[in-house]
């Protein structure tokens, strides 16, 4: 058993739209960058996991990267594709199966909102035909009720997006690189009340690769390493309220994010108060607000004060979504969860440039959420 697993190389293909370059080619770009960062060759990789939601299988990459006979497992797990690849790569090293493993996620989606097919989610056709099977509706319905119960204002939803675009201007892998002011955000066309166009992320393109290594390998290489303190990946429990739910249990229930978060903190042996920088799933503005509480960083309703005081800004007490998150980077499904881990790796290594979190952050927390109700949390330590 290798108790400690580290990230020793991180690569990213800029998010957004790159005409003429396939999703998988963006993946190859990210892998090569991660290998260079780690000071390794492709032939040094002993195990690889990766995938995309809409850009094909990852293992075909060996055509470009080299036919080294590496075992390469394709991962297809929706929004948790990247998180699942990371979990698998980490576990392969922890199990002692190898000393160097790769996790890669990439994607390339057409413009416009995702459209889901009812049968693929075990749902009847009428649910889609009547116009109730839209992910954007779920997020609006969830935050609408949350705002009523916990006193969150529309202005706060606007402040979330304003922060994302401001952070995006400082980030070279972000898609949206221009600031958007609060009034423009609040007065933009409504997608699903209370969420306007600027409060939602868009499907996009991009790729992220991470090279993982055992402690033994880190010592051998003298790597600029970040330790993976924990990874936890959970699907929905009884009674939870998730995307694509024609009905909900009246008695309520748990949330996959709360469960994954609790497990990740327990495994790392730390609590929310120990985290220096966090990347939380911000599919839309309300998601960041609710995920702050679901991950244990504040009580329900306290987000109103957090945004009024700027506590989640890059210079605040807990910087959140320092690269602009999904709102500024867009959401290539297979790569999105790994982007959060990439950003925390950058921050903990002190390589954030204009967006660097001050005072040598020691603990980075990342959280991805997706349909049909799953969450993956990773905690990194320096």
């Amino acid at each position: 058993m290798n108790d400690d697993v580290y990230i020793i190389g991180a690569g990213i293909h800029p998010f957004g739209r790159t005409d003429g370059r396939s999703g998988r080619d963006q993946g190859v770009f990210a892998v090569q960058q991660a290998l260079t960062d780690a000071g390794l060759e492709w032939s040094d990789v002993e195990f690889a996991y990766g995938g995309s939601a809409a850009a094909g299988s990852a293992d075909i990459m060996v055509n470009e990267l080299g036919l080294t006979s590496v075992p390469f497992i394709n991962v297809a797990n929706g929004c948790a594709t990247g998180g699942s690849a990371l979990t698998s790569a980490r576990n392969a090293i922890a199990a002692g199966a190898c000393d160097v493993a790769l996790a890669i996620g990439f994607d390339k989606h057409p413009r416009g909102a995702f459209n889901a097919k009812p049968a693929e989610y075990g749902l009847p056709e009428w649910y889609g035909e009547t116009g109730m099977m839209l992910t954007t509706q779920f997020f609006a319905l969830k935050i609408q009720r949350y705002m009523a119960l916990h006193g969150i204002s529309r202005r706060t939803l606007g402040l979330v997006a304003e922060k994302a675009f401001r952070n995006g201007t400082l980030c070279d892998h972000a898609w949206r690189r221009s600031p958007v002011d609060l009034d423009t955000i609040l007065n933009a066309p409504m997608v699903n009340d209370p969420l306007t166009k600027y409060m939602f992320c868009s499907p996009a393109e991009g790729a992220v690769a991470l090279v993982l290594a055992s402690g033994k390998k880190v010592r051998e290489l003298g790597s600029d390493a970040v330790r993976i303190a924990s990874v936890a990946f959970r699907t929905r429990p009884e009674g939870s309220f998730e995307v694509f739910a024609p009905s909900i249990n009246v008695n309520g229930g748990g949330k996959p994010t709360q469960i994954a978060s609790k497990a990740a903190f327990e495994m790392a042996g730390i609590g929310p108060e120990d985290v220096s920088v966090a990347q939380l799933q911000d599919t839309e503005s309300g998601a960041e607000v609710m995920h702050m509480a679901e991950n244990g960083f504040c009580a329900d309703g306290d987000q109103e004060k957090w945004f009024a005081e700027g506590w989640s800004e890059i210079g605040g007490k807990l910087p959140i979504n320092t690269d602009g998150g999904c709102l500024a980077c867009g959401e290539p499904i297979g790569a999105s969860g790994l982007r959060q881990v990439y950003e925390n790796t950058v921050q903990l290594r002190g390589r954030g440039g204009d967006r660097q979190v001050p005072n040598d952050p020691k603990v980075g927390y990342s959280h991805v959420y997706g349909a049909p109700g799953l969450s993956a949390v990773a905690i990194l330590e320096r």
Partner: protein
Amino acid sequence: MSALAPIAPGLWTDEAEPRLIGGRRANGEIIFPVPDGDAATQVEPVALARRGTLWSWTTQGFEPKEPYSGPQPFQPFLLGYVELPGEVIVETRIVDATAADMVIGMPMTFAVVPFDDTRSTYAFRPEQQP
């Protein structure tokens, strides 16, 4: 209304004041709709309450992609969840109301309404004030 065919069979009862049909699991939990296939054998069909309260709501102002098959040109609509007390919270269209009328907790009543020229669907509307 009688000329319109339900958008799917088995969603609501065929009676003067129709009710949604849910499925009761062995543990007492009610789900909607009654599932297809093998899962249908795990639930007992149960007619649900016609009155409930608004649990959450939103607007749909742009035309959804397929498989949405509503009438052309697209008409924006309201949707939300209605809590049927002690039974289940169901997702539904909301009719005869505007976004400005929506208050979480307000009383709602079940209705079968036209979906397009040939089909009906289910909805809830704010309860008429006496």
